[in-house]
């Protein structure tokens, strides 16, 4: 079988929708068997069945990435089904709303639980398999919000900053064991996760919120899930064999100005 991930096994978290779903489909198209982890079972199953319908090998696992027990069980199930894990894309994430003054404590805790701890727990489970097998690639989901401040987004910015720092730490620990770890910092992509934030930015008018946000992007538009998936594929595959600890921005020029 041809494809940049031919014969590999990839795990994508939060792949029931958005960037995760697009990436899972792309990985499958490049020859990988793809395990989809999502909090919402029907979403995971639907995404998996679309891949299977196109001829790919896939497994849907419902699990909460903030729960160590569920994560370990999910990864055991995936290893059991496919025999190995070569790639992990820690895509599962949640948004926040509120500046440091009005953000709630629940918002903060939730952001850190899913975005930072979820990445930690899944990476820990996957790395064990990867180290035992002699190699692998972990791709984390940062954000432009990890690199520049964004208004009314305090918890999200902080949690994504944690993901970038965790990526560097993981890369140092795992490089001698053949496992590369990199992070993508996407700009705004129009997905269900981002929609409420875009709408709020336009004070209830989605079109206005989209226009205001797009104005920050030199390229003149928001990103698409497929454009982020393409970066994830590069980092997952041997094309990035000398990259570890890298922070790859995919942001239409947003942080360059």
């Amino acid at each position, binding site marked *: 079988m041809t494809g940049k991930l031919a014969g590999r096994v990839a795990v994508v978290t939060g792949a029931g929708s958005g960037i995760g779903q697009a990436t899972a489909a792309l990985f499958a198209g490049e020859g990988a068997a793809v395990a989809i982890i999502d909090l919402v079972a029907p979403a995971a199953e639907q995404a998996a*069945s679309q891949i299977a*319908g*196109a001829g790919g090998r896939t497994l849907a696992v419902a699990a909460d990435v903030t729960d160590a027990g569920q994560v370990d069980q999910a990864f055991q199930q995936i290893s059991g089904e496919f025999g190995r894990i070569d790639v992990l894309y820690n895509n599962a994430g949640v948004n926040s709303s509120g500046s440091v003054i009005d953000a709630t404590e629940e918002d903060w805790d939730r952001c850190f639980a899913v975005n930072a701890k979820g990445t930690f727990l899944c990476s820990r489970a996957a790395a064990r398999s990867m180290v035992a097998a002699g190699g692998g690639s972990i791709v984390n989901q940062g954000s432009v919000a990890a690199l520049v401040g964004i208004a009314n987004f305090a918890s999200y910015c902080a949690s994504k900053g944690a993901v970038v720092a965790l990526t560097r730490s993981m890369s140092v620990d795992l490089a001698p064991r053949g496992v590369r770890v990199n992070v993508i910092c996407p700009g705004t992509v*129009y997905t269900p996760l981002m*929609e409420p934030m875009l709408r709020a930015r336009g004070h209830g*008018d989605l079109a206005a919120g989209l226009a205001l946000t797009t104005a920050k992007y030199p390229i003149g538009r928001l990103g698409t899930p497929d454009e982020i998936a393409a970066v994830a594929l590069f980092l997952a595959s041997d094309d990035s064999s000398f990259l570890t600890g890298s922070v790859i921005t995919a942001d239409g020029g947003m942080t360059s100005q």
Partner: protein
Amino acid sequence: MTAGPVAVVTGGGSGIGLATCERLAKEGFTVAALDLRPSGAAGFAALTLVCDVTDEADVSAAMAAVSDRLGEIDVLVNNAGITGSRQATRCHETPIEDWDKVFAVNVRGPFLCSRAVLPRMIARGSGHIITIASVAGLVAFPGRCAYTASKGAALMLTRSIAVDYAAAGIRANVVCPGMVYTPMTSWRLDQPELRAEVESRIPVGRVATPDEIADAVALLASGRLTYMTGHPLVVDGGMSAL
């Protein structure tokens, strides 16, 4: 119990459903958003519930929770829907699983949800059911076999409800959107060549925003159109008029 008539919006976490939650809340409704991922509606809905509309137990539990916590359900918006696989497939190319999935969400979903709310509506002698179908329920979209068939079914289900419950004081109508820019369609509409091709077939020259569909839902939910039932309200920028 809270003030304002109660509206349930399925698929209320994003896209047309999210815009509808926001619009109905602005119009004074107390809104419950049901979705696999409802949290996006948290700013507009009084209640968000995780609910898989293809699952009867989920639907019963969700509707009971809404009426317990918010009061009698006055309006049901059957908005949850999927388009099926991204590749265009004609009938003989359509995987059977794809057909089943599309029908489960787009047809069984509105059936189960309507079924759950109708008994109380009959008892009260009033209620509104609004199903978001599509112009694909009226004219076939090329290569969209399962989607087209499912939207026709959703439209006729709603007409069936309109006929059977009209004497009971319940109104059931359909909104048939044309092309709308939502997270579900953005993968296609964000590609300039594909977007241009779509827009070239639309007299107004652009796709709709979710708010433009929510406007139609709000009109039907308002109850002002007391003599309209079983009607497909087409909101498509002139696409099906060509």
